[in-house]
């Protein structure tokens, strides 16, 4: 005769099943045919100032149409839980934010939500740092819903933005190259090829001397902290040396007092070095105007009245570039321009006898002054450009065969 389990035992087991089923908040309840929510995790949102929690969970491809994920948040496990965020069933894949979740295939198989605030009892409440929050994720479709286990996290301010790691590495590499070459230039003579415009510069100065007319040096409109103005001042030093040697007159117009002051000292130093301190006149280096068109009008007036034999325009120019260059061309002067203003290059190219374009301006100043810091900087920039060119070519080839690694390395976040 078989022994049946006693009925009281059966009843006890049955009650136990019902009790575990009713354990409520910590249990995953599934009603109907909605898929379960797997791999739910919550953590501090990385790379931010805090006040944000990120919730992630596995993607399921069997979500019914119109399905919606809703995230609820509470300050204690028991609640109350307040609505924090809501997204459509197929939205917010991790692949949409590669800077946080990476470019791997796994990013296509998971969702995310960044929670920064929730609709509390008395209005919108922002998350606070270093406070534990309890997050519950639910999937709703019509009258059905399913719920993931509650997860916890606390928001914190982060000390490094890992999204910008590529930026700091590339920036660091470039800085290392530039500073390294500057240091090298102090001990070795670095080679720079001859810049074509420099020959034209010598020719212009010789012409001015032969004609007995002054040379007019025109600064661009930017101030002394700009690289183009610094380069222009270096070229001015060379021009001043030559005019001192040749005994030609030099006029320098500047757009502001600081540039004028630096130009005066540069010219004076050049005249001293050339052994012609008596030839220097501070009145020949002056501010023509402080506004764009007043500067242009004043300079054009000098061109037309004094008829310099050579016009040397160096720096960053704006719309006045064509006014200056075209007026200068009517006087028959030889004109040499150098600018890194991309939009003004065509005007200088068409109206001047020679134009130093973009980096040629910086290179010319380095070549003329032979200062280690300028030579080293130029070499460092060249090295940086070589790296960029190699990256462009290699990256294009790799991208063609669907290997976007280099593209991702250079993508800013």
């Amino acid at each position: 005769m078989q022994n049946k389990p006693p009925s009281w035992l059966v009843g006890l087991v049955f009650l136990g099943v019902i009790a575990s089923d009713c354990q409520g908040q910590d249990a995953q309840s599934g009603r109907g045919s909605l898929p379960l929510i797997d791999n739910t995790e919550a953590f501090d949102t990385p790379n931010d100032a805090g006040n944000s929690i990120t919730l992630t969970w596995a993607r399921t491809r069997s979500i019914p149409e119109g399905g919606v994920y809703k995230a609820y948040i509470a300050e204690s496990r028991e609640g109350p839980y307040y609505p924090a965020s809501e997204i459509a069933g197929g939205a917010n894949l991790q692949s949409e934010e590669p800077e946080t979740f990476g470019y791997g295939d796994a990013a296509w198989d998971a969702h995310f939500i960044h929670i920064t605030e929730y609709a509390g009892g008395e209005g919108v409440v922002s998350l606070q740092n270093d406070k534990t929050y309890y997050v519950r994720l639910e999937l709703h479709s019509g009258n059905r819903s399913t719920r993931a286990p509650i997860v916890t996290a606390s928001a914190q301010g982060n000390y490094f933005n890992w999204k910008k790691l590529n930026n700091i590495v590339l920036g660091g590499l470039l800085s290392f190259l530039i500073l390294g070459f500057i240091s090298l230039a102090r001990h070795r003579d670095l080679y720079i090829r001859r810049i074509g415009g420099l020959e034209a510069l010598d020719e212009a100065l010789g012409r001015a001397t032969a004609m007995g007319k002054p040379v007019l040096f025109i600064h661009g409109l930017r101030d002394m902290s700009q690289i183009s103005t610094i380069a222009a001042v270096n070229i001015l030093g060379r021009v001043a040396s030559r005019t001192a040697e040749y005994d030609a007159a030099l006029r320098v117009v500047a757009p502001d007092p600081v540039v004028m002051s630096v130009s005066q000292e540069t010219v004076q130093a050049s005249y001293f070095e050339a052994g012609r301190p008596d030839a220097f006149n501070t009145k020949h280096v002056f501010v023509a105007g402080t506004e764009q068109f007043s500067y242009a009008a004043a300079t054009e007036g000098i061109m037309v009245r004094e008829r310099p034999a050579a016009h040397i325009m160096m720096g960053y120019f704006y719309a006045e570039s064509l006014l200056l260059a075209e007026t200068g061309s009517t006087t028959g002067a030889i004109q040499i321009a150098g600018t890194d203003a991309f939009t003004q290059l065509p005007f200088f190219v068409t109206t001047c006898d020679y134009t130093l374009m973009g980096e040629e301006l910086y290179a010319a100043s380095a070549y003329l002054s032979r200062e280690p810091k300028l030579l080293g900087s130029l070499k460092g920039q060249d090295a940086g450009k070589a790296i960029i060119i190699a990256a462009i070519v290699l990256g294009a080839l790799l991208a063609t065969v669907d290997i976007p690694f280099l593209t991702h390395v250079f993508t800013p976040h």
Partner: protein
Amino acid sequence: MIFLSRTLPVIVALCFGVFGIGIYYVPHAAAQNLERELALWLRVVFAFSYLLGLYSLLNLHWQRIRQRVEGWGYSAMVYVGFGLMMLFVIHNDGKGPFAPQAEGTAAENGYQWLFEYVQVACSSTMFSILAFFIASAAYRTFRARTPEAALLLVAAIVVMLGRVPIGAYISEYVPAAAEWLLNVPNLAAKRGILLGVSLGAIATSLRIIFGIERSYLGGGDE
């Protein structure tokens, strides 16, 4: 004195340069608050630079008037113009300089009248001279002396016609060709120059931050 004029500015440049770079990579609230403070300070410095610019301008022209240099009458006009505008600013339609800016059109407000019918008129006239100058420059220089010059000439004509409605009248391909020229070869050249100039700007900034470049202080290097 050397410390104040040469050493301290370099230290300040180093500290703020390093802070500025660091803030970019540190998302913590403390760094962001520092960035906010620095931006406010920067605005104050900018505002004072306007005062400095005003003083420089007036001082420059005063010296010219005082020394009776050639053309000193124009320097006197600077003072006349400045004084007139300041008069209307202070008058402020009867409300005085400490009340908000008076409303009203140019017909009702003297300051607005001077701005619209003197400043705007003169400035835009100077700017419009470019139209004449570009015509004469283009005529003089766009000659097909070499194959490259011929290519430049053709491209210039296509873009000039393609950017105005008349180009579409001539042919529907003219605007399309102009857009291609601007978006492909022109943009490629622009990017190349931009890369070079940006690297140059990074190099100069590094030199200034680390005190290698000091020409911005005035007075040459030591």
